[in-house]
């Protein structure tokens, strides 16, 4: 369903994605794991027609995203890592607009909107403007919107970022259901290893723009001689923290070190 060969993307001097190759079979749940700045989002942007690759080849359902963009766009749905809602519209209006853009028939659009907003506990707030939502509510709306039309491929870029455990559970259960009942192919990224282990059939680990390991969660553990995916991930990517988006805890540690001096 997705085939990538020698894909690279450079932003000036920075090589964000470096000669990457992989395949995702139809109906598979595939996880792309890697530290901050590894090149996950950049890869997704190239797969979803938002960015042109510097070099390499991409096939989505047999089509080239750079040339047959519109055909490719009909085949996938996406939940972005960064916000992409219209803040000046209500939750319901955002859903409706998406339905119109993807030509979901009106009746189905309303049924699915009600089902999804209920599932992600936003139905009571459907008339509220997105700008009045909390971070987690916006996130839930982004996810609900991504599920409104039923695509062949679903890209989920850190969908659980900032979500409470209940919503995460809802999300992954729903993803699993879609995959089983409709055969939707899923391409996801996450920083939570337990999630990847729970839902992904196959995993690729990317670091500094290069894929450094691929396989099922069990294979990765075997390859690295570890007993958890987390340990396997750390063994593969090292335990140093990437300077980009270093967590609050790391910054505190840094501060503490400076105070001691």
């Amino acid at each position, binding site marked *: 369903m997705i085939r990538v060969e020698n894909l690279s993307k450079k932003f000036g001097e920075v090589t964000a994605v470096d000669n990457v190759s992989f395949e995702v079979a139809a109906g598979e749940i595939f996880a792309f794991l890697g530290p901050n700045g590894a090149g996950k989002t950049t890869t997704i*942007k190239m797969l*979803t*027609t*938002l*960015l*042109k690759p510097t070099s390499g080849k991409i096939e989505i359902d047999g089509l080239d995203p750079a040339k047959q963009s*519109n055909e490719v*766009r*009909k085949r*996938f749905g*996406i939940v*972005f890592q*960064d*916000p*992409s*809602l*219209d*803040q000046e519209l209500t939750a319901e209006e955002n859903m409706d607009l*998406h339905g119109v*853009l*993807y*030509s979901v028939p009106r009746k189905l659009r309303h049924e699915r909107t009600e089902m999804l907003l209920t599932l992600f506990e936003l139905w009571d707030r459907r008339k509220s403007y997105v700008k009045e939502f909390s971070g987690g509510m916006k996130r839930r709306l982004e996810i609900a919107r991504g599920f409104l039309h039923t695509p062949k491929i679903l890209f989920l870029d850190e969908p659980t970022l900032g979500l409470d455990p209940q919503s995460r559970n809802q999300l992954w259960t729903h993803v699993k259901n879609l995959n089983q009942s409709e055969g939707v192919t899923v391409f996801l990224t996450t920083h939570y290893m337990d999630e990847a282990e729970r839902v992904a059939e196959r995993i690729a680990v990317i670091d500094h723009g290069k894929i450094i390991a691929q396989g099922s969660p069990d294979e990765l553990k075997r390859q690295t001689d570890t007993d958890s995916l987390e340990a396997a991930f750390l063994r593969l990517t090292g335990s140093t923290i990437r300077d980009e988006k270093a967590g609050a805890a790391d910054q505190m540690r840094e501060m503490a070190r400076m105070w001691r001096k």
Partner: protein
Amino acid sequence: MIVASLGQPLLYLLVLGFGLGPVFQKAGNGSYLQFVAPGVIGMSVLFTSVFSGIGLLWDRQFGFLKETLVAPVPRATVMIGKTLGGATVATIQGLLVLAICLIAGFRPVNWLTLPLALVFMIMTAIVFAGLGVAIGSKLQDIQGMQLIMNFVVLPIYFLSGALFPLTDLPTVLNFLTRIDPLSYGVDGLRNIMIGTSQFPPELSLAVLAVAALIFIALGSYSFSKIQI
């Protein structure tokens, strides 16, 4: 939003119409309010339409643009939709300013043909909404907006004959006014509203139509090339 942005045209109308009126009259050009009313309408159509197109920048900043860019709708269709949407708002704005002009004492030569002014408002609005989208597709941040205001929008306005007659100008200035599409929009409005004009209204309409096609083509092209 529409009501708030009526302040500026109102200010122009009052200050220029009544402030410069005596000077203009002494120079033997008749009532300045009559002369400037079509110019002020042109101005508000210009500002509203260009900035509706540049509004694309906000979609980019707040992330919503991504949602439109991955949707299975040809980008040219989205671009034309945005242009027509912006042009509609700008035309409504133009009509409101016309109403204000009438309240302020402006009198058209012929009440029966006054509705034809709408044609020129719509055409002007489409031209500059298209230009706005073309610019908005290229703009990366808010700093660029100030530059566009100073080096594109204001020159278009001041060179259009909105504020002074386009006669007896130095050659360079004369040339610049002739390539400014707004000159034809304002001149067409003047033809209908006060019965005098520099160019035949058919010519003005043709120039506006060509400009609209050029800017829409340009806008569709740059919109379809957006990468984020």
